[in-house]
């Protein structure tokens, strides 16, 4: 699904580096991601997939280079505007990052509360999204009492409940059996069809094979030359 040239790039990276001390997690990344694209980022363990996602939502700053998200220059954004930026993203973190002291419901509703939505609306939306990921009856459980796959599904629910423009998913089905994984992937595809841009970091070549989308390969922090685009 190489985006047609007239389409708008929602995310642009120019010469981006990310260093941790002597370690170069990302080296000279130049990349455009277009509105409503479905992108896989793949590569071996430690290649820099998660780091790349982190740079987009300012989980960490780039060491060098420019990143534009929907026209915002991330290097120049003021601290007060960061929440604004992050609300454009729905993020499924590799390690889920659920709040252990809050129930499943509270973890998911947090996003909507932070947006200032009305309480009865929040309740409706959260229950609906929990139903979609198959956890409607676990809404009052604490995350640590859930199985790994259940936690991952809560993370998915939290990422999509706010109806974000861009979905960043870091290994969103790593803890799921094939059938649950299929459900989640179908969900992300449906979400994509509604107009969102979806970026998935994953090792799962099988999943990549089954799904239409651009594949970006990283190795040792560098982009590999893209194979011929597999247009839809």
């Amino acid at each position, binding site marked *: 699904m190489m985006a047609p040239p007239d389409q708008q790039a929602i995310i642009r990276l120019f010469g981006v580096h990310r260093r941790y001390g002597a370690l170069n997690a990302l080296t000279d990344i130049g990349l455009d991601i277009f509105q409503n694209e479905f992108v896989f980022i793949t590569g071996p363990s430690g290649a820099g997939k998660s780091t790349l996602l982190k740079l987009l939502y300012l989980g960490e700053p780039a060491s060098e280079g420019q990143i534009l998200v929907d026209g915002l220059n991330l290097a120049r954004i003021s601290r007060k505007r960061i*929440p604004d930026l992050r609300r454009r993203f729905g993020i499924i973190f590799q390690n889920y990052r659920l709040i252990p002291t809050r129930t499943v419901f*509270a973890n998911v509703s947090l996003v909507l509360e932070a947006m200032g939505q009305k309480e009865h609306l929040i309740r409706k939306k959260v229950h609906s999204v929990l139903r979609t990921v198959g956890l409607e009856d676990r809404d009052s459980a604490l995350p640590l009492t859930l199985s790994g796959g259940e936690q991952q599904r809560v993370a998915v629910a939290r990422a999509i409940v*706010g109806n974000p423009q861009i979905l960043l998913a870091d290994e969103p089905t790593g803890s799921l059996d094939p059938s649950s994984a299929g459900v989640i992937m179908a969900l992300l595809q449906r979400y994509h069809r509604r107009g969102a841009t979806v970026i998935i970091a994953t090792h799962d070549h099988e999943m990549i094979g089954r799904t239409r989308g651009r594949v970006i390969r990283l190795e040792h922090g560098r982009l590999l030359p893209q194979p011929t685009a597999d247009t839809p």
Partner: protein
Amino acid sequence: MNRILKRALADIRDNGFLNAITVATIALAILISSAFGLFFINASRLMTLWQQGVRVMVYLQPEFADAAVEDLRSRLEKLPAVGKAVFISKDDGMARLKKQLKHQLSLLSNLKANPLPHAFEVQLRPAVRDWEEVADLAAAIQKLAGVAEVEYGQGWLDRFAAILRLFKLAGFGMCALFFIATVFIVANTTRLVLYSRREEIEIMRLVGASEGFIRMPLYLEGILQGAIGGAAGLAGLLAGHLYLSAQIDPGLLPSQFEVRFFPPALIAAILGGSMLAGCLGSLLSLRQQLKT
């Protein structure tokens, strides 16, 4: 606001242990610093009262006419610092002297006539605190017609006043120190609590919550904890105070004195300080977390 309160209360419920420890620490810290404050306030009130117990003796001129006594009394009692003026006739004076000199009674047995002058014993108003005020008063009395000499402040009382001053100095210094330390202890405790919750706060930031959204409930929580802890500390102090006051033999204390608790304004100030301290800790902690 209602929403923030709701979230703060939910948060307190979800973090029961942390809250219990925080409130207990605040209560203890407030208890010890205000216990000292209360002790100091009462002790220095007691000492002031003692100092005020000081009489000023006014000796009249030998030729003073008995008829003018009431006139002088009313003039004395009109002085602002004076509470009451008690007339002591020369005979009363001799009786007192005999009691005082019980081992030297032979001295007095040879006397043919009573050589003592009439006198007034002047008691001061409770508002009179300083030694200087007493000295001013004495000077004013000295000027009144018929007054031969004014006497006040025996040696031991002078010494006492110096120690009282020292006591008050140390006391105020320590009150200040204790309350500052309390603020720090409370703030430290809140910082520890938020440190153990930093992952949660980080997650809220990552899902796009604004600083205000994250902080307001935490500040409110700090304030609530400060209020509850402070109130618990003061309640404990009050209980101890009531118990101990009941134990004290009233005969030991000057009759005008009663052991008192803090006045309402001070209670409010202590609670306010404790609320502020709870909030301050959250503030410092959240600031620090932003920096890293």
